[in-house]
Structures are given as C-alpha cells and as structure tokens.
C-alpha cells in the first residue's frame, strides 16, 4: 500500500496544509480537537473536497484538481466515532451492507470478521440494543467486509468510557496483526496511539509538525512541546521473562530488567510499554532503601531545555530509549550532561496494565 496525500483547505480562520505519506501498518494522526484530523479523514474518504489537494492510492489518483472519485468508489473503509450503524437493519444486515456493492471479495471472510470481533452472539440484535463498545465492533466489522483497500478510523474510541475502551483495544490489536490492512487511526488519546500505532503524524493547527515511526517520535525530546508535557513519554519494547506469584511480572529491556504489576502477555512475548517522562526519577548513584523496584543504569543521550522550568532528558537503557522530565534546576544541581551515566528509577505502578500493548 502506498498512500500519498497533499491537502490544502481553508474554512473560516482555519487552514489545513499538509502532506502525508503513511507507510504500511497503523499510522496515527494525533492532535487536539480542531487540529484538522477529521478533515484529513473526510478528504481521504471523499466526503469533503478540499480547495486543493491530491490523493493517490497505489498509483491510482483519487483526487486532484480535475479528478474527484466519489466516496463509494474509493474503497476506504471508515469507522466513525459515532458508529453510524443503520438503525433499521440488524447487526448481520449492517455487516453485510457493503458486501453487495463490493466488486471483489474482502481479504477477510465474514466468518473471520465475526470471530475476530466476537460478533456471533450479536448477529440478530438491532443497533438500538447494543452497548457503545458493541456498536463500535459492529462498525469495524462492517467496514472490513466492504472490501476496503485501507481502513480510516476517526476517533473510534473517543465516545466510550474507560472499561469499553479497554474492551475494544485488544480487538484493534488483533485487527492490526490478523488483517495486515493499512490503517489510519485518528485520535487525541496518546494511550490508544501508543498501544496501536506503528507510525505517528502529529497535527497542530492544520500542519503536520512531525511524522515518523512511533518509537522514534515518542522518545525524541524535541517533540515534547507538540505532545504536551503530561503526554510525553517514551515507548519501549520489552520481553516478558516471568510472572511472579505475587502478581509482579519481570520484563527485560535489553540487558536490564523491569518489574511491573501483572502484565497480560505470555512469557517470551514482546510487549510495548509507554513510560511517562514525569514518572521517571534520575539519580547519580544507585539508591538504596527505596520502595521503587526498578532502578535502571542508563546513559544520557540528549538534554533538551523546555520553554518552562522543565528539561527533557533522553536516556539509553539497554538499547531502548527512555524519556525523563526533570526541572532545569535539577539538571544544573546534578550536573547532568550527555554521555553521563546515571540511574533511572521507574515506579512499578507507573505503568498501568491497560497501557501495555502487544508487539
């Protein structure tokens, strides 16, 4: 899959001007509300014609100044924030809606979709009787069965409460690994993006300020202003080594180990952890007599002063990057410099079990 989009659009005071070249896998569009995320989705699926723009998918032009392929011929499977199930059709009929118009079969069979999303018990129900999470699962299945070339998901979890989100995220992870369908995933929640995305595009005021692989972007201190200080935190890959009887799991990051509460993954599997920059404490010497279990020897790779009193510090821990946020005063007092070795203290409870993704 190769999608290229170049979009210029203006409405009122807001202008959108960006260039997207998402690669395979899940590409997250991250930004606050009003940053233009949904507009991008509506240009890609053909519901909105921008002032200027080109969209090509696998060498086929979907949009330029002359051509504007209508939505029903674009084969972009869409999942919207408000599921948009057809109220007069039951779940099975909703799922099959796109099939009758598709000129080719979906890469994934109806039975697979029903199994993947756990829809078997819902097939005869009407949308009005479904929970928010169930509706969203049906909407995803419906999009998958319309033989799409890619999936566009516009804040699919934003309208759901935390338990419903936690219920759907595993389905989305399976969707990603089982179908291999390229996905554009719009969200303002870094928790979701950190679990699902391979690549990220940060949108701000209609501009794509940063794009790249998620692991690189999240561990780069330069991107903290774009993400917001509270959202900043590196994503690291860790391997599950063992699950202790006391509910604590041990994971390895390179040569170092990390103890975390109940990680829901089999021993030997690779998980991704997002460790928030504000949850890491730095120490010059290995501390003793501390309740925190995780003390990792790290090397400082870069220090970035923020606009406020804080500084962002990128660390190398066993080959993976961590990001810590401390005050500029601490940097000065401790004499922190690049290439210095020190200790990063990570509180085990700082990484919530539901914030841990697979792969």
């Amino acid at each position, binding site marked *: 899959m190769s999608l290229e989009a170049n979009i210029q659009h203006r409405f009122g005071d807001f202008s959108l001007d960006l260039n997207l070249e998402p690669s395979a896998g899940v590409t997250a569009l991250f930004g606050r509300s009003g940053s233009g995320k949904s507009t991008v989705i509506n240009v890609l*699926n*053909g*519901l909105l014609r921008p002032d200027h723009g080109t969209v090509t998918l696998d060498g086929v032009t979907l949009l330029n100044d002359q051509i504007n392929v*209508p*939505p*029903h*011929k*674009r*084969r*972009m*499977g*869409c999942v*919207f924030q*408000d599921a*948009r199930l*057809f*109220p*007069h059709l*039951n779940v099975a009929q909703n799922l099959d*809606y*796109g099939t009758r*118009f*598709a000129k080719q079969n979906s890469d994934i069979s109806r039975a697979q979709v029903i199994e993947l999303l756990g829809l078997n018990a819902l097939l005869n129900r*009407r949308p*009005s*009787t479904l929970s928010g999470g169930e509706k969203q699962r049906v909407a995803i299945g*419906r*999009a998958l069965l*319309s*033989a799409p070339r890619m999936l566009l998901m516009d804040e699919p979890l934003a309208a759901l409460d935390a338990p419903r989100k936690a219920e759907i995220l595993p389905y989305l992870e399976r969707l990603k690994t089982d179908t291999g369908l390229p996905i554009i995933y719009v969200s303002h929640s870094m928790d979701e993006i950190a679990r699902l995305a391979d690549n990220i595009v940060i949108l701000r005021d209609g501009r794509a300020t940063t794009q790249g692989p998620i692991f690189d972007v999240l561990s780069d201190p330069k991107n903290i202003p774009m993400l917001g200080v509270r959202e900043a935190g590196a994503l690291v890959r860790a391997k599950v080594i063992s699950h202790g009887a006391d509910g604590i799991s041990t994971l390895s990051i390179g040569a170092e180990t990390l103890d975390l509460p109940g990680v829901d993954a089999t021993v030997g599997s690779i998980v991704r952890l997002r460790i928030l920059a504000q949850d890491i404490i730095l120490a010059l010497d290995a501390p003793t007599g501390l309740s925190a279990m995780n003390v990792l020897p790290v090397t400082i790779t870069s220090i970035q002063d923020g606009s406020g009193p804080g500084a962002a510090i990128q660390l190398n821990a066993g080959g993976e990057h961590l990001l810590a946020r401390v005050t500029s005063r601490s940097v000065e007092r401790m004499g922190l410099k690049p290439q210095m070795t020190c200790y990063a203290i990570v509180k085990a409870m700082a990484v919530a079990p539901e914030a841990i993704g697979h792969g």
Partner: protein
Amino acid sequence: MWGLDATGWDAVQLSLKVALVATVATLPVALWLAWLLARRSFFGKSALNALVHLPLVLPPVVTGYALLVLFGRSGPLGQFFDTVFGLEFAFRWTGAALAAAVMALPLMVRAIRLAIEAVDPKLEAAAATLGAPKASVFTTITLPLILPGILAGVVMGFAKALGEFGATITFVASIPGETQTIPSAIYSLLQVPGQESAAARLVLCAALLAIAAVFLSEWLARRIAQRISGA
C-alpha cells in the same frame, strides 16, 4: 348499500377513485420536491417552497380558478396535455383528481420533508463509504427511514383529496357520475328541500371512510415502526 341511492353510490366510488389516483400520482412528485427542499440548495428554492405551499394558504376557490385558467380547454397547459397525451381535465373526473392532487401536495411534501430532515446525513455518508452509489443510499437507507413520514403524508394527502370541495367544484363543477365527489354531492343534496336524509347517509359514509383510513394508517405505522427499530 348503506341506504345509498345510485347517485350517492356513484359519488362514493368516484371520490375513492379520485382520491386514490390523486394520492398515488402525487406521491413521487411530493417525494422529489421534499428531497429537493430538504437536501438541496439551489437558486429559487424559497420561491419553489412558496409555490408548493400556495394551495394550503390560498382560498380553494382561487386555486380552482387558477386550474381552470391553466388547465381548462383553452388554457395553455390544458391544450398541451390534450394534444400531447390526449388527456383532458376540464369537467372530467381527471380534473377532479388534478384538483385533489394540487390540494394534497403541500401536506404530503411537508410531512415527507420533515422526515427527510430527521434522517442523519452522516448515516448516508457512512453508506457511501461502504460502496453504495447515491441511488442505492436513497433506496436502502433514506427511504426505509422516512417510511413513517411518507405514510403520514399519504394519509393526510388522501384525506385532503377525499374531502376536497372548493377547488374541485370551481374547476370541474359537480356533474353526477363524472365530477360529483362526496362533498359536492352532499352540497347538491342540501340545496334541494327534502333530501336531508340522503345527505346524512353520505355524511355518515364520509365519516366511516375517514375513520377507516385513520385506523389503517395507525396499523401500518406500528408495523413500520417495528421494522425500523426492531423493538
């Protein structure tokens, strides 16, 4: 039957025929106009809206007079339909149907337009992204969802067509067996002393027809609501 004489029975049959033809013929036009007014923006939209609603606010006699001028034997539209389709309206039952249709149109357009406006365009957009062309979106999403509105429009239109008097009598007069519908028959009977009981029988007949129509529509509405919500 029901103590109606031949003239009364003719009036009942004619009224049903006129109202049925008027409603069926108006429905596609009303659907199209309602869709235009609900979903499209174009130059002259408010003028079209006013024109559609005109029969609702004009005195029916004025509407009948306008029909006479336009669709009469020497009227421009009357001549056009006569020469092109061989269809004559003046003093024919077809003219009564035309008058009933024109009077029923605003009621039908209004009901259907409200129903279309209540359909979330986002559902139609979702259908398009699933591969449905515009016409299919209308038949598979919009149409089923506005069915209750269409039914309401049809019932109101049919009732209006059945009871239409002013425009009909002005346009096509009251010729027994040709243009004398129930209301004009009742009116004619009341003009002659001693025909009160015949008039009363027709009045009863009109009331029964109206009540039957209401019950039928209630029953249909329940079935449609069930199909839409699945409750």
